């Protein structure tokens, strides 16, 4: 099997990055990119392969983060059960997957814009539920002191360890998504995206397939949610609020939903913008609170020039020149 040289280059750079990069770059920029990328990958899987745009994937991540805080350890000892990681983490993943399955089952009655609306409604409802429930979710303040287990004697919040932890999961879900896209389940999902009626006529249970896709897509989002909780050592309603839910859509659309790599490209651009937009905005003489203006303009620019995101721009460049722009030599024509 021929492997695109870009894989080797990107893989090598990512593996040796800790040798040069500062803790801030490793922990904040790349750690956050990988986490957001995983959650956006969950959306990419549903939207790109299945044609279902779900705004509830950040909520799935939030549910997993909350479950780890509730079943594992946190500073809120009244609520947290303090169970060992090998109980709390699988339980968190399972509950997140059940939540996603229920979301999918509700959303399946709808199509297109209505899927977006119903999943946004679910995201909003859970934001207010987390915010107002004190018995289980500790209301507005949520949970702090949620730390990863010291597995293998490693402090996983150490920047280098956390970098490799998030890189590992990002790579695992990335290659997992590519693998599953060529499996009967993944192919059927793409068939449903292109022509659901024909799929039904071929003998497929379209509803069951779509609901199952929500369950499968829950896992990258749930792992992302747990890592996000560990990164800041806390989770609160704002983590999975309506703003972050829409941010995941922005990440996926900026990168492009045609291929799993788009989720990570979009996450990187988003993280860079969000981290440095404030400096740039202040530099041009606007108030620092206007940094979202830059993110919004970036989003508009991508959607305006390339509805398929950065990936779409890349494909356009390739087609217009008949070249692989990275290698500057003739690329394989489709």
């Amino acid at each position, binding site marked *: 099997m021929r492997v695109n040289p870009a894989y080797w280059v990107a893989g090598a750079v990512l593996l040796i990055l800790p040798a040069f990069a500062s803790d801030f770059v490793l922990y904040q920029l790349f750690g956050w990119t990988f986490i957001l990328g995983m959650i956006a990958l969950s959306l990419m899987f549903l939207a790109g392969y299945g044609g279902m745009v779900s705004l509830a994937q950040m909520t799935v991540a939030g549910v997993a983060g909350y479950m780890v805080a509730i079943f594992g350890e946190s500073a809120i000892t009244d609520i947290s059960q303090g169970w060992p990681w090998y109980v709390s983490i699988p339980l968190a993943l399972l509950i997140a997957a059940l939540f996603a399955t229920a979301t999918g089952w509700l959303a399946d009655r709808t199509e297109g814009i209505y899927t977006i609306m119903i999943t946004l409604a679910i995201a909003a409802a859970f934001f207010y539920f987390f915010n107002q429930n004190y018995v289980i979710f500790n209301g507005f303040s949520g949970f702090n002191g949620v730390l990863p287990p010291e597995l293998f004697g490693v402090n996983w919040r150490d920047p280098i360890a956390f970098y490799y932890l998030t890189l590992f999961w990002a790579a695992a879900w990335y290659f997992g998504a590519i693998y599953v896209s060529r499996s009967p389940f993944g192919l059927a999902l793409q068939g449903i995206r292109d022509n659901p009626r024909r799929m039904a006529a071929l*003998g497929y249970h379209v509803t069951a397939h779509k609901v199952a896709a929500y369950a499968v897509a829950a896992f990258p989002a749930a792992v992302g949610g747990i890592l996000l909780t560990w990164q800041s050592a806390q989770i609160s309603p704002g983590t999975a609020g309506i703003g972050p839910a829409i941010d995941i859509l922005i990440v996926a659309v900026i990168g492009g939903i045609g291929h799993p790599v788009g989720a990570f490209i979009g996450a990187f651009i988003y993280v860079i913008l969000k981290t440095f937009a404030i400096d740039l905005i202040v530099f041009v003489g606007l108030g620092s609170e206007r940094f979202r203006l830059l993110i919004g303009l970036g989003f508009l620019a991508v959607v305006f020039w390339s509805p398929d995101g950065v990936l779409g721009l890349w494909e356009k460049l390739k087609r217009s020149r008949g070249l692989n722009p990275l290698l500057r030599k003739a690329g394989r024509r489709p």
Partner: protein
Amino acid sequence: MTRGAMPGDRAFSAGTANALELRGVTKTFGALSALVDVTITIGPGEKRAVLGSNGAGKTTLFNCITGDFLPSAGAIRFFGEDITSAPAHERIRRGLRRTYQISLLFAGLSVIDNVYLACKGVARGRFSLLRPSRREAVMESAEELVRTVRLEDSRDVKVSDLSYGQQRQLEIAMALSGAPRFILFDEPAAGLSPGERQDLVGILKGLPSHMGYIIIEHDMDVALQVSESVTMMHNGRIFKEGKPAEIEDDEEVQELYLGGGNA
């Protein structure tokens, strides 16, 4: 054959019962009579062409046979079994297939993936997250069908990048998936170039002799080459039946068909 019959019974009934029998099938849409008292008998393995001008009722006939519409009157039997009011997917499971005038393919997937999905629809493991191996039986039959319709050189090409003629060939491969017993071809040559028409004739002639079909076709040349018998329809009624040579020489047919569709 009852629903509980063994698979082995199929071959037996296929050898004895007619593939398709229509008795007095009538379909009205309000005041419009699309089909009037249509009676057709097609023996096992028989290849039949249905000719007629636009509005003669050919596609309505297909829609009644596949169950997209229920006939207003009359009965339809498929290999001896009454399917007049059976739902469409039951008829598919009994081995009936059709192609569509407008391609209903999966545009974002490759040729082999389209055929694989069609074959997998009636097989086990549709929810599997594991990639199929090349030796999987379903994959092998998909590869075989891609060769049957002569698309092996375009095996990995995305459907949206195929030529129109290739899409029609793929449509046929999809209809051939899952061991069909009888196929309805709805204008398979429409929009094809002369060269592609010859390919189509080759594909249809290469089908196994036990696999019967009805072909609706405007191109007389194609229709008469690939059929053993011909039914002419006009204004929703059967107008004439016969061997291809008889139909070709029939003066009434020539006037009706070749003298312009509006006769």
